[in-house]
């Protein structure tokens, strides 16, 4: 997709011959595939070329009720099962996922638009690791919470976003099952397929029926789940707006909640940083998964005396990024997840221009069909620009300069969000100084967007509450006494 290359890279397409997809997907309730009560289906579209992949069931309130009832019915025997037996099921799911990792990666890319390099090397392996990790905890809860009585909460309603469909399903399901809860999970409407493949894997693993139920649909389906009276816990990852709606809906009901919401995270480069690796970190921070990352390093702060150099290097690096068909193994930036999201991003880009921010996009041909957005920089912006304040959820980076440490801490914290931050410096003491002062759930030092099942993840302020991953992730699914 680049011009005037002496040695262009030939397309290297991942094969799609080996995957198996149904034309139409029912709901996975009580261990069975059941047609939706609504009788309605909606298409799942490949955002890379707008082709139709499969039809997905649109669950209504009755379907949600069926799923919650199934989960409730399964709860006593599942929570009463010997913990080591629960672990066996989780290990089994993890292993089958590994066996099918190639298929899962291809479907994730087809359905969501993310580059195959990422779904193959990051999403799917991490999702498997979450199951392995929490399988290990299932019979060791007494050690996770010493001297406490540990009980599961009951039925967990889980609603996950479209940016990491399989990974988020794993983040939610694995700790819930390990602690003895049963689950009703709703994937996002644009990316239901890998959750449904996971349902097939769960079926193959022989998990007792009703322990995991997967229902598909839109916001109304999610709303029915949140408002169902027999749910004990809501785990939600998604936008801050929806998070607030959920918080209001469950107020006074006694339902527990963890909310993992939006972010506008600061990535801070000091003048003593390893500059070329910092530039890589900027690229990984904002262009990973087309910027559809809640913890994306979308606000860059560069110390003023090295700003010109960093920006020059960043622009040069952006020229070597491949934007295009996500199934090409060499693609760095794939397709935007949906038409709606592309519109949102484009509207922010035009707001940025209107507000007078200097824009940079590398020259690059985009595919004619599908939803694509060039990696974008907004240079010389201020905290007061809209593009600096609001979460764009796309490959758009704002760049501000700073003079002193105090100034950058103040500006980094000057946001309603508090999910993540990055600090780049050669000085260890400076890293620790900043990690204590940055109001963010995760602070990365000399790296960005690193995830691991052993490490807790979550935010504060408008980025939500509760932690997923690590021992902390277990706490979200247990009653302690």
């Amino acid at each position, binding site marked *: 997709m680049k011009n005037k290359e002496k040695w262009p890279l030939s397309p290297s397409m991942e094969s799609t011959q080996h995957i198996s997809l149904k034309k139409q997907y029912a709901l996975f309730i009580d261990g069975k595939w059941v047609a939706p009560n609504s009788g309605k289906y909606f298409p799942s579209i490949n955002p890379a070329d707008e082709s139709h992949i499969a039809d997905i069931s649109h669950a209504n309130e009755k379907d949600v009720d069926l799923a919650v009832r199934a989960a409730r019915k399964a709860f006593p025997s599942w929570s009463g099962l010997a913990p080591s037996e629960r672990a066996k099921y989780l290990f089994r799911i993890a292993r089958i996922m590994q066996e099918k990792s190639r298929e899962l990666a291809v479907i994730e890319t087809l359905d969501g638009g993310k580059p195959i390099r990422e779904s193959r090397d990051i999403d799917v392996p991490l999702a498997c690791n979450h199951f392995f990790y929490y399988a290990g905890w299932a019979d060791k809860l007494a050690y996770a919470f010493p001297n406490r009585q540990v009980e599961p909460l009951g039925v967990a309603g889980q609603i996950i976003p479209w940016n990491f469909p399989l990974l988020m399903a794993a983040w939610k399901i694995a700790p819930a099952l390990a602690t003895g809860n049963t689950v009703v999970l709703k994937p996002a409407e644009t990316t239901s397929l890998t959750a449904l493949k996971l349902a097939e894997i769960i079926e193959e693993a022989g998990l007792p029926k009703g322990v995991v139920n997967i229902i598909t649909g839109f916001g109304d389906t999610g709303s029915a789940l949140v408002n169902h009276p027999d749910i004990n816990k809501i785990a939600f990852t998604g936008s801050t707006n929806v998070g607030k709606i959920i918080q209001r809906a469950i107020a006074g009901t006694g339902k527990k909640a963890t909310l993992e919401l939006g972010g506008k995270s600061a990535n801070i480069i000091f003048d003593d940083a390893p500059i070329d690796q910092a530039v*890589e970190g900027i690229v990984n921070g904002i262009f990973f998964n087309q910027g559809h990352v809640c913890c994306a390093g979308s606000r860059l702060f560069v110390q003023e005396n090295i700003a010109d150099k960093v920006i020059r290097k960043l622009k040069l690096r952006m020229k*070597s990024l491949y934007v295009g068909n996500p199934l090409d193994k060499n693609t760095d930036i794939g397709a935007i997840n949906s038409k709606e999201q592309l519109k949102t991003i484009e509207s922010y880009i035009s707001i940025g221009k209107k507000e007078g921010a200097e824009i940079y996009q590398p020259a690059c041909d985009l595919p004619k069909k599908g939803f694509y957005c060039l990696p974008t920089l907004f240079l010389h912006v201020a905290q007061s620009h809209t593009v600096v304040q609001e979460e764009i959820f796309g490959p758009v980076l704002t760049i501000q300069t700073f003079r002193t440490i105090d100034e950058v801490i103040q500006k980094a914290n000057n946001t309603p969000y508090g999910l993540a931050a990055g600090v780049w410096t*050669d000085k260890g003491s400076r890293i620790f100084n900043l990690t204590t002062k940055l109001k963010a759930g995760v602070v990365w030092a000399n790296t960005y967007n690193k995830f691991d099942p052993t490490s807790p993840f979550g935010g504060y302020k408008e980025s939500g509450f509760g932690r997923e991953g690590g021992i902390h992730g277990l706490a979200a699914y247990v009653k302690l006494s």
Partner: protein
Amino acid sequence: MAKTISQILLDTPKVDKVGVEERVARIQTRSVKGPSKSQGLKMVLNMIDLTTLEGKDTQGKVRQMCYKAHHLHDAIPNLPAVAAVCVYPSMVKLAKKELRNTQVKIASVSTAFPSGQAPLEVKIIDTKFAVDNGADEIDMVISRGRFLQGEFQYVYDEIAQIKEACGKARLKVILETGELATLDNVRLASDIAIHAGADFIKTSTGKIQPAATMQVTYTMLMAIQDHFAETGNMIGMKPAGGISTAKLALHNLIMVKEVLGDDWLTNEWFRFGASSLANDVLMQIIKNESGYYASPDYISID
């Protein structure tokens, strides 16, 4: 203008090893297939400095290697020749004679290769001897001991003097990165070599392990990138030692493409120092044309 040592020390950026490893790992996920693979393999052949640097080198061995240099595999028409042969100064005259009327350049190591533990006067005589015998390129080694002692000015001046002794011959400066130990040192030594007058910077002698790892080559390519951004002057790069497979060579080319751009993808600016790489690349080219892997016995060893 060339920078002074104090300016170089101020400007040389820190290098984070973990970050470099990640970047390199990502480059190694690039997939080179189809036409770009065929083209890439031929580029690799044309960038090789076919090398023999052993105490047991004889006239016969050098003569055979020189013939191979421009007859890589005559069964396949239109294969390029290698870029150069690389020999000890005592073999330069012979190599020059064997390769007259070809495009293949003569590179000679010098400066008491591989250790560099000799007085400067001896190194200058060594270099002049090779140039007078017809060497087109000089591969010198830096004084690693002096570098590790912190005598950067000495290292800088030595390179500058050898550059002068080279006359018209192009100078490749071998850092022997396996002895410099850290990527911070590799970066600093690269900057010193570039400003002291190197036309090429080169990783290793091939006598010390590790040699041309992708991490080291990446760090050196970044030094070249910065120099080009600051001055507009191109510097060449030569990883040497340890690149013996076509796949690794192609990954190196991808790295050059992404860090420096397609302008560097010619043997004027990029070389592989290798003795066994050519045959592995030939085997891949034969496989590309015929669809099957030939036995190594179908490819000549010289």
